[in-house]
């Protein structure tokens, strides 16, 4: 019944996040006809540098529906919101449940700390999988409503890349939760790291090549149809390492 | 056993229980051959440690006041044992009554009498002047 307990602890974060993502996905689709109309007359953008280049690029991409979905949904809205919830769901756990939160009760049960941690991690990851795939499926489902179509295969691939690469943020929050006893610092720190990485990648072109966001958005797949294997592997390895470090921390922790 | 032992006095609870049983026999509340409450129900009722009740019963059996019949429970000893208790009690009562009367005649207050008895029982010595005495 620890799975049930884990669910109870994260369910609101999950449900709210899922709802927001679904609404956002549907909204992104339904808004396209308006966007397409505006883009018929290309605006002149006066911003120079990397940001300006990106804005122009986004405009160009959006002329075509597939490009629009990628640049607006998979590269922007989806990762931003999903990473936020990945951090929120990764936060929590034994250390923050200190006294009054049930930690001592949990620790008095005949179960190893490793198993407790594993259950919490597994529940979080399961929730994040749902949050990665379901909203994108809504894109495919609602596209016909505006007279477009979006490939199910593309949706699945992008969702999978988002999830695998994005688990690094979940694991980061998870790890920080075994270091700080409150729930604010792990969440805040992980968000700051994500924000810093995102901004740097947007602004400095060289960073983008190695950025985790590039893997998450599966840019290579979008442009060339190739999967970012190296990036996915590296992300998975990094995630695993952080979860392992979290397990080590918890096993050494005094309560 | 109708009343709770006083757990805050310096007297061990099992001794208090033993006293209550003996007093019960003396006053006739417990008759020879009568069954005493079981260890578990008694501990529950008085909210004291079952081991304490067991100890009291064991000591009472050792003194011949009660019998522990295996499987059946604790019973007030047959006439011989109970009679011994009540005889001993009556003899003791007489001695104490005489002593108290003599002390009162000397002007010793009741509170002082009580302390003297307690001190005597707790294992002490009289002051050197009144001629030593071993505990």
């Amino acid at each position: 019944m620890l799975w049930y307990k884990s669910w109870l602890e994260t369910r609101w974060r999950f449900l709210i996040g899922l709802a927001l993502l679904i609404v956002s996905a549907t909204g992104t689709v339904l808004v396209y006809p308006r966007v397409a109309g505006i883009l018929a007359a290309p605006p002149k953008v006066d911003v120079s540098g990397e940001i300006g280049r990106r804005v122009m690029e986004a405009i160009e991409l959006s002329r075509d529906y597939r490009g629009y979905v990628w640049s607006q949904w998979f590269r922007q809205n989806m990762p931003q919101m999903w990473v936020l919830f990945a951090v929120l769901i990764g936060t929590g756990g034994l250390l923050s449940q200190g006294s009054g939160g049930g930690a001592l009760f949990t620790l008095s049960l005949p179960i190893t700390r490793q198993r407790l941690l594993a259950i919490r991690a597994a529940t979080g990851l399961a929730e994040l999988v749902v949050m990665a795939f379901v909203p994108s499926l809504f894109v495919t489902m609602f596209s016909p409503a505006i007279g477009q179509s979006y490939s199910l295969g593309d949706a699945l691939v992008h969702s999978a890349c988002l999830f695998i690469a994005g688990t690094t943020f979940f694991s980061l929050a998870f790890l920080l939760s075994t270091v700080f006893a409150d729930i604010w610092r792990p969440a805040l720190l992980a968000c700051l790291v994500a924000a810093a990485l995102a901004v740097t990648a947007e602004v400095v072109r060289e960073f983008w090549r190695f950025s985790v966001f590039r893997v998450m958005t599966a840019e290579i797949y979008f442009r060339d149809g190739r999967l970012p294997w190296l990036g996915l592997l590296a992300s998975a390895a990094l995630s695993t390492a952080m979860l392992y470090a979290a397990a080590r921390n918890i096993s050494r922790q005094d309560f | 056993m109708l009343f709770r032992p006083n757990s805050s006095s310096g007297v061990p609870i099992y001794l208090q229980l033993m006293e209550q049983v003996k007093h019960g026999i003396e006053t006739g509340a417990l008759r020879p051959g009568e069954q005493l409450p079981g260890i578990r129900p008694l501990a529950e009722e008085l909210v004291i440690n079952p081991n304490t009740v067991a100890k009291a019963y064991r000591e009472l059996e050792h003194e011949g006041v009660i019998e522990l019949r295996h499987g059946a429970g604790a019973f007030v000893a047959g006439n011989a044992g109970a009679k011994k208790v009540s005889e001993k009690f009556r003899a003791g009562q007489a001695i104490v009554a005489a002593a108290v009367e003599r002390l009162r005649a000397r002007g010793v207050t009741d509170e002082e009498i009580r302390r003297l008895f307690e001190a005597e029982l707790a294992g002490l010595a009289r002051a050197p002047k009144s001629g030593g005495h071993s505990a």
Partner: protein
Amino acid sequence: MGATVRDAPVIEAVDLRKSYEGVEAVRGLNLEVPAGSIFGFLGRNGAGKTTTIKVLLGMARPTGGGVRVFGLPADSPEASVDIRRRTGFVSEDKDLYDYMDVGEMIRLTASFYPRWRADLAQRYLRAFELPPDRKVKALSRGMRTKLALLLALCRGAELLILDEPTSGLDPAVTEEVLQALVTHVASEAMTVFFSSHQIAEVDQIADRIAIIDRGRTIVSGALDDLRENFRRVQLVFDGAAPEVEFSAPGVVRVRRNGRVLSVLSNAGAERVIEKGRAFGAVSVDVVPVTLKEIFLETVAAED
């Protein structure tokens, strides 16, 4: 009855040490809890009671010394799981999951213990008047304690560890809790180890105690033995009480007050009386000592 056949102590601590960030909470604590006893663990706030309990349950790791529960090393993670399978625990804060209801807490706990006693759970639910669908966070303090106790008692455990079980409870609920404990111990073979600073309840139900102060055991033994061995001896002198160092075997504390020397001994009164007479005491008074006095005096003697 509580006593079992085993000889080995259920809990055994030898020179236990535990430091938290440079502060030594436990410094060389010794403890021996025999099977079948109701063991009271007395101490002031901050004396190291909760820390010791956490070490027993594997929630904290000792910095030195050894602790065994059921003969198993408490600081080994695997052995600790075994220990916890046979132990029921109630924390000082009656730690539970606020967001669950009574029924869910019972089902969750039951799922971990193959020897769960559903019959007892039903009985206690009724006796304690706990509503199964009330959320834990909506329970009063007394009901929270009773629920925590229910969860600990129904595990089919051989050892019950309670950290200040009746703290903050009104006398009626306190009595209910003590009665449930005593009843349970009477019918199941188990050992109870509880920490407290309510002397009265320790007096009432414990058969063995240990007094801990500043991370060390300063008194331990069977309560009845302690009651028989501790004596206060008042020595009265003709002139001022002698200023000499009054030491005899068993002397715990000596207080001078004008012509009176008040000596607390943990080994009977005889040696103290001898010594007192040797110093010229003109009168001697011996009184038994309550557990409260034993506690206050031995702890104060450490200051």
